[in-house]
């Protein structure tokens, strides 16, 4: 499989505090990868590094075989990486539709438009003129995913899209993933719910204290291996 994104010895810092210690990570084109790990393991920091919110050495991150580690976030998205951020981070002053339109500001064309996003999440069309933050948690998450898709990314990074949602809603949200990948977008999800991650992913990475503690396919990893890697037992 051709690697779409590769990180080599990726490190991340918040001031003097080092949050990531040499992450080697690969996502192949069309592959769905899940990143699991406990609170503070560095999962969100990793996504922020890839999207350029945190800066890095150019060569630490390669996307479509080009170094992008030193690009600022507004340039990374133009290369084709979009993020559904932790906590959704909808724009409170914007309506649902305006939030979605913001996702298209990188001006990449492709399958995803307002129309196709509304087809994926019909409830959003009904609420298109409501303030994004007036929606239920699950609907807000749909807005955040739709907003990411509006960039027509080759790689969509989703940070804890199930957090704080009822199981039935999580099911709805994850049901959208196949429609996303079938349009040619590779998906990587950060997920604290191990079962959810194993169900959706072709391959799983487990993070622990800023390092990759385990990597493998769901069918080859045992429960014991995963708990050890997850909890550091």
């Amino acid at each position, binding site marked *: 499989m051709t690697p779409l994104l590769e990180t080599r010895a990726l490190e991340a810092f918040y001031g003097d505090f080092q949050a990531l210690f040499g992450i080697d990570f690969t996502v192949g084109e069309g592959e769905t990868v899940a990143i699991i790990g406990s609170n503070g393991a560095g999962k969100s920091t990793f996504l922020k590094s890839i999207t350029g*919110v945190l800066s890095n050495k150019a060569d630490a991150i390669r996307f479509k075989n080009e170094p992008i580690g030193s690009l600022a976030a507004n340039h*990374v*998205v133009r290369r084709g990486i979009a993020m559904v951020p932790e906590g959704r981070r909808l*724009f409170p*002053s*914007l309506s649902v539709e305006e939030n979605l339109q913001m*996702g298209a500001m990188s001006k990449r064309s492709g399958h995803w438009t307002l129309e196709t996003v509304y087809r994926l999440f019909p409830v959003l069309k009904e609420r298109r003129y409501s303030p994004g933050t007036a929606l239920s948690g699950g609907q807000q998450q749909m807005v955040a995913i739709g907003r990411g898709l509006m960039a027509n990314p080759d790689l969509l990074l989703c940070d804890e899209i199930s957090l704080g949602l009822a199981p039935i809603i999580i099911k709805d949200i994850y049901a959208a993933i196949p429609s996303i990948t079938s349009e040619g977008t590779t998906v990587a999800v950060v997920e604290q719910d191990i079962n959810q991650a194993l169900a959706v992913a072709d391959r799983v990475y487990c993070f622990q204290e800023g390092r990759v503690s385990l990597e493998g396919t769901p069918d080859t990893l045992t429960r014991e291996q995963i708990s050890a890697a997850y909890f550091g037992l």
Partner: protein
Amino acid sequence: MDWVNAIVQGIFVGGLYALFATGLSLIFGVMRLVNIAHGDLIILAAFLSLAVVDGLNIHPLVSLVIVVPVMAAFGYALQRGILNFTLGKDILPPLLVTFGLSVIIQNALLETFSADSQRLQAGAIETASIPIGQGLAIGVLPLIIFVTAIVVIGGLQFVFYQTTLGRVFRATSDDAVTARTMGIDKSHVFALAMALALAVVAIAGVLMGIRTNFDPAVGPARLLFAFEAVIMGGLGNLWGTLAGGIILGVAQAIGAQINPGWQILAGHIAFLIVLVIRPNGLFPRIQG
């Protein structure tokens, strides 16, 4: 009748104050920057018009064709070159830098144009008026200014809520980091906002220069009026800013009617009263 007249005139002056205030309100709304040099930029625009009028021998209103784009370009460069670097968690640097800018503009104007009081000569419209019966008359110039204020605010309102640029302004103001992951360059967006604000400042400066005398030192007083109008109307609400301007204008007119020396004081008192009753202004922005 004198009282009715005073109030009517006050309402029209309020249009000018609203024009002073919209630029300030816009900048604060988009980037949480309090621009201490705002009043001096208004005066700078008036002097720029003066120079253009003298140089090209054109009507001050025609000079807007030059003054508006020049001020807008200056705003873009100012934001990109200096002010963007002052914005951060600490609110002090932008205050200090714009205060410094205020001093620089005043001194530069003093050096270039002297401390003499100036006026933009606009001919007949300065004194023309429309009688509206019972001894009342509305000056054509105040009417032009008031209508301009409504058009400018309506236009900005349209830009903010109906255009892509406005959507980007609001999103960047909400959450610049997330907007950035969507391809938005905050430095550019803020510079565009400053350009837009200084385009409005240009209009305000020229109209002010036709209506009243000005000299390099009167900027801070314009800032104060603008500030009071913005706060009274409620931060981030442009129509509220118009209302704030009108309240300020009317209060000053009433004060002046009681005693000519009380004009400015009455405006400040109205401001304090509004602040005590409604600390968030009369029409605060509805938060989502």
